[in-house]
């Protein structure tokens, strides 16, 4: 008995499915693993890629007390991806005893700097504001700020975020411009960010006598655009939440190797926790693409045979 051609087939029904069912599937693919990881505390193991290892080695290889400039060029919209990176990098610098100078080119980045520094350095009494860490806050101008910091940091940032002149900060003594830092890190969500730092600041130093080492942390959208700069113009890239998870893993591994009995606070495993929803979300995406194409092929075949 042949099928009534007026009845919609499964392929037809799937093709007309309300997209809210897909939204629900995506929500469950993300929410359920979040709850599972939150309850069990389990995370997946990570194996670092060369670009992330390069970023880790860049911080690790600096002698203790080196000066690291960190530009947190993101806002709350991208904090889900980039906050774990910023936290891990600041923590790594603190473990190595480096001096940290934080700044941002995004107007909404100021509170992010404050929260990150407080979260990581607040429990470290050896870190005292002005002596081994400062926050320069935000300055408007994007590339204009980069042009100024290349020549004279105090021209771009007359004071730090607490309105103290840079000359009065012990850590900033001997720092005239950005090239006086041993490492520049940009955790960037887009424009202005890592790409502009490479173009306006880092590349100019590569042909001078003192090349500035640069590490970038970027969102998933921006990472492919930064790949060509690695490894000549930047020594490491943390790409998307996976890069953050790999970097966290390396830092936590270094902590455990130094002290096998050390426990890692849960707030320093934020990116690793988020890899569980990533797994299910990605599998769902692949399933949706395959299903969509199967529906397309089935409907085309049905249309051809009709």
């Amino acid at each position, binding site marked *: 008995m042949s099928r009534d051609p007026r009845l919609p087939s499964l392929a037809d029904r799937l093709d007309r*499915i309300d*997209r809210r069912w*897909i*939204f629900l*599937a*995506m*929500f469950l693919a*993300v929410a359920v693993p979040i709850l599972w990881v939150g309850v069990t505390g389990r995370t*997946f193991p990570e*194996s670092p*890629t*060369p*670009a992330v290892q390069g970023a880790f080695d860049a911080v690790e290889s600096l002698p203790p007390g080196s000066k690291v400039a960190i530009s947190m060029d993101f*806002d*709350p*919209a*991208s*904090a*889900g991806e980039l906050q774990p990176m910023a936290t891990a990098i600041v923590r790594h610098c603190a473990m190595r005893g480096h001096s940290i100078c934080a700044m941002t080119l995004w*107007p*909404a980045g*100021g*509170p992010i700097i*404050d929260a990150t520094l407080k979260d990581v350095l607040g429990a470290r009494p050896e870190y005292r504001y002005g002596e081994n860490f400062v926050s320069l806050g935000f*300055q*408007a*101008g*994007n590339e*204009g*700020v980069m*042009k*100024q910091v290349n*020549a*004279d940091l105090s*021209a*771009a940032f007359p004071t730090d*975020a*607490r*309105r103290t002149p840079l000359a009065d900060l012990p850590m900033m003594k001997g720092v005239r411009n950005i090239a006086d830092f041993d490492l520049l890190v940009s955790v960037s969500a887009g424009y202005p960010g890592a790409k502009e730092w490479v173009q306006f600041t880092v590349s100019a130093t590569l042909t001078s006598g003192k090349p500035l080492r640069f590490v970038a942390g970027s969102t998933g959208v921006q990472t*492919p*655009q930064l*790949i*060509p700069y690695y490894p000549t113009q930047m020594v490491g890239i943390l790409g*998307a939440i*996976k890069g953050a998870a790999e970097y966290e893993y390396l830092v936590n591994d270094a902590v455990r190797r130094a002290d096998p009995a050390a426990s890692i606070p849960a707030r320093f495993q934020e990116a690793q926790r988020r*890899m569980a929803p*990533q*797994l299910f*979300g*990605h*599998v*769902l*995406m*692949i399933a*949706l*693409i395959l*299903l*969509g*194409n199967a529906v*397309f092929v089935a409907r085309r075949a049905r249309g051809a045979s009709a």
Partner: protein
Amino acid sequence: MSRSMAVLLASLAGITMVLSKFIAPLGDAEVKVADWFNVLAAIAFVLGGANLLKMNLLAISARGPGWGYSAVTLCAFLVTLGAGILKVGVPPAAAFPAVPFSGEKDVNGSALWWLYEYAMSPITGTLFAMLAFYVASAAFRAFRAKNAAAMFLLATAFVVLLGRTYAGVLATSWIPHDNPWVSWLRLENLSAVIMSVFTNAGTRAMIIGIAIGVAATSLKIMLGLDRSYLGGAR
């Protein structure tokens, strides 16, 4: 006349910036010009806020559909601006207790901080998070492998999607990781190869092409050949 003067200003500014790269004494001029640029960028934020004020006041006075939302926007804007400019809830800095405005404008616990932390931050974060749903819907409805190139694109996407999670590790865990002749076929390694070789090459070519285009466009602006940025000004 004003257009000609504007074009002249643009040319002078641009050429000075180019020459400052090669003539050391012009470097100080570049820093000064950058300072002006930064202040102008900050004034552009003021312009944006003023324009928002103007557009929403017009919408409210016109009483068109949705004017209530314009009123909400206006209230939110004025409250936030007031909280920020007047540093509401910000104690004076410990070193300058006699100067009321000496504290940090968004210190933890201040009104501006509250608005940032509990209004701006969650809403902007959620707006961007919504994209995950739309990309899922687009994946089902729009990503069709209609030809070999599209199939290749989707296959690459699958490799990267799996390779960047533990699913890829599990899927190809049967491939020995210590055999260099085949270990690159493990999904996590294959996705790294795709990024470091193929994506690297494609993006590098695009970067080179864009650089040539930007150089050409910048030259046209500096030479006054491209005046499109002036719009329809008199």
